[in-house]
């Protein structure tokens, strides 16, 4: 496998939207960019800015308004239905509501672009289906009926279906919606891993900002004013796009971690001494309670958090321990008494 990433999808001056008989609604225009293989690209944006429209246009489900979409160096319009089905695999938001069908049978449907008139699978097809199942690690689900699976499990089955389709490009429309948190992480990590293991180009839309910022290789920010802004999560952070993009009252972009956090209003401050996990936890708890806490602030009393080798927490004034607490909950109570 080649090690270099390549631009599999090129957009040239693309405009997307809806064409009706006598009025055309343009959702976004002037898009010039690329999507690379071996990369996980995440599309972020508020509801209604046109994430789904973009995905639908890129998968040739709806016509573009103007410009070019080149996939594997060919304009999308020159692909036949069959060629497209071997180039782009999709995972959609529409729930695949089939009864009496096993997960394996559903994944086998991914082979349809390659099977003959009756859809009969041959040895090679079965091998590819088993490989797809193994890549997504759902061997234990393969013989379950699809309608008995949880949303997260079903999503993995759909991803396996897209893998069985053996397309260089996979589009996913909000694959993490409706999943519980561990499943969200699992799906995102799985997709990231797949870009590395299979070299596929994976492009998805999501509302899970935190996860996307941590796992995606590239982020596309989509909004009405600026159109689409593209970069690695880190570049976008440094250039101030992220903080601008999601700026709302109560949300701040933490430059240190490159992630968003809830903004707190502080009424007092206290100095913290210590380091590591316990330091971070105490700081988080105090800030939630309206106390600005870190190494650099000045205060009469200070808290010694210790580290994982010591037990409990100490409240001190001028080198003298005035109170001790076993848990952060106790610490919070004692701080209130002593201030």
């Amino acid at each position, binding site marked *: 496998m080649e090690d270099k990433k390549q631009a599999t999808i090129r957009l040239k001056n693309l405009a997307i939207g809806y064409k009706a008989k006598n009025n055309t609604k343009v959702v976004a225009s002037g898009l010039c960019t690329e999507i690379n293989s071996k990369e996980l690209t995440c599309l972020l944006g508020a509801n209604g800015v046109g994430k789904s429209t973009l995905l639908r246009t890129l*998968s040739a*489900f709806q016509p573009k308004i103007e410009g070019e979409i080149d996939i594997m160096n060919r304009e999308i319009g020159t692909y036949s*239905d*069959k060629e*497209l*089905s*071997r180039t*782009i*695999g*999709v995972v*959609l938001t*529409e729930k*695949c*509501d*089939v*009864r*009496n*069908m096993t997960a394996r*049978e*559903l994944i086998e*449907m*991914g082979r*349809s*672009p390659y*099977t003959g*008139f*009756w*859809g009969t699978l041959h040895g090679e097809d079965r091998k590819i289906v088993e490989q797809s199942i193994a890549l997504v690690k759902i061997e234990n689900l393969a013989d379950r009926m699809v309608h*008995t699976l949880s949303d997260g499990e079903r999503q993995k089955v759909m991803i396996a*279906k897209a893998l069985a*389709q053996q397309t260089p490009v996979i589009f996913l429309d909000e694959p993490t919606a409706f999943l519980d948190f561990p499943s969200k992480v699992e799906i995102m990590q799985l997709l990231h891993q797949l870009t590395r293991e299979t070299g596929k180009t994976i492009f998805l839309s999501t509302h899970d900002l935190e996860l996307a910022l941590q796992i995606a290789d590239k982020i596309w920010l989509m909004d009405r004013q600026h159109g689409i802004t593209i970069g690695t999560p880190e570049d976008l952070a440094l250039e101030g796009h992220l903080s601008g993009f999601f700026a709302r009252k109560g949300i701040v972009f933490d430059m240190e971690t490159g992630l968003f956090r809830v903004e707190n209003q502080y009424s007092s401050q206290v100095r913290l001494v210590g380091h590591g996990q316990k330091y971070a936890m105490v700081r988080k708890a105090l800030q939630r309670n309206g106390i600005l806490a870190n190494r650099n602030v000045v205060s009469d009393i200070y808290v010694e958090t210790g580290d994982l080798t010591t037990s409990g927490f100490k409240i001190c004034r001028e080198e003298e321990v005035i109170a001790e607490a076993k848990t952060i909950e106790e610490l919070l109570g004692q701080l209130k008494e002593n201030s």
Partner: protein
Amino acid sequence: MNRGKYTILILVITVSIIVFLLLNLLLGSVSIPFGSVWNILTGGEDDPVAWQNIILKSRLPQALTALVAGAGLSISGLQMQTIFRNPLAGPSVLGISSGASLGVAFVVLLSGQLGGVALSRLGFIGEVALSIAAVVGALSVMGLIVLASRKVAGSVTLLIIGVMIGYIANAVIGVLKFFSVEEDIKAYVIWGLGSFARVSGNQMMLFVTIMAVIIPLSFLLIKPLNLLMLGDGYARNLGLNINRARMWVITSAGVLTAIVTAYCGPIIFLGLAVPHLCRAIFQTSDHRVLMPTAMLVGASLALLCNLIARLPGFEGALPVNSVTALVGAPVVASVLFKKRKRKDAIEF
């Protein structure tokens, strides 16, 4: 479920068809011994002419009609349920059988008014006229639906258009009935009850031949039907031309319904229930299994219903539609109910 189990089940269903077919020939208001039935079927001419007539001109055509009609309606129902992703869909859902009824209503109810002759008295010519009217009515409604299927995007919209066409047809029939003489209305009502016995001699040959061509053709749609189950988006992504596939499925299901309705009247229930029965028995959604089994189960069930309608005592008095519903509905309901209970236990 493995291949061996499939084979056994299919074998059982096939045997049931043969048994019901023989019983259909054997049982009736006139009792004819098995030996004579066999003799007549194999071309022997020693038996009384009356018996020969009963077997060759009444029981055999009726049984074959039931067999073919049951198979056709079940396939049609399966196709409709799949493309509309609706368990309540059946052959009649797109207004196609209403179209047939409208055609028949025009001929039956207007002939008395315009020609001054009640069609019900015309015999064979009347019979042919009815078949033609039904086919014309059904196919014109189907043509409308196919036209609509090219314009509208969603299956649900199409379903609603079909149901609306059905209402319009029924309204027109109502108006026609209002202005008709009692005798004609009765003839129309009897047609509406459905019967496998209406098709005689030459017509039966034509009917069976047409169906023997169309049923295998409908099998060509197995792969598109499997893909359509996944929903339009996924099917399209897997290379299926949705509009074209939908048009062919509607055409196939529509023609099957139109032809059967033309010859047997609107037969209810079979087309709706048999696909459910097959899914429950074979526990699959794969049309490679469902299409052939729906055909077999449909044929078997239709033969059974015809048999019951003709049981000694009823003397052919029971209309087929009453039997299909009265006998079939509880059977299907109980099968589905058992299945549902077992599944829920696993699911929760």
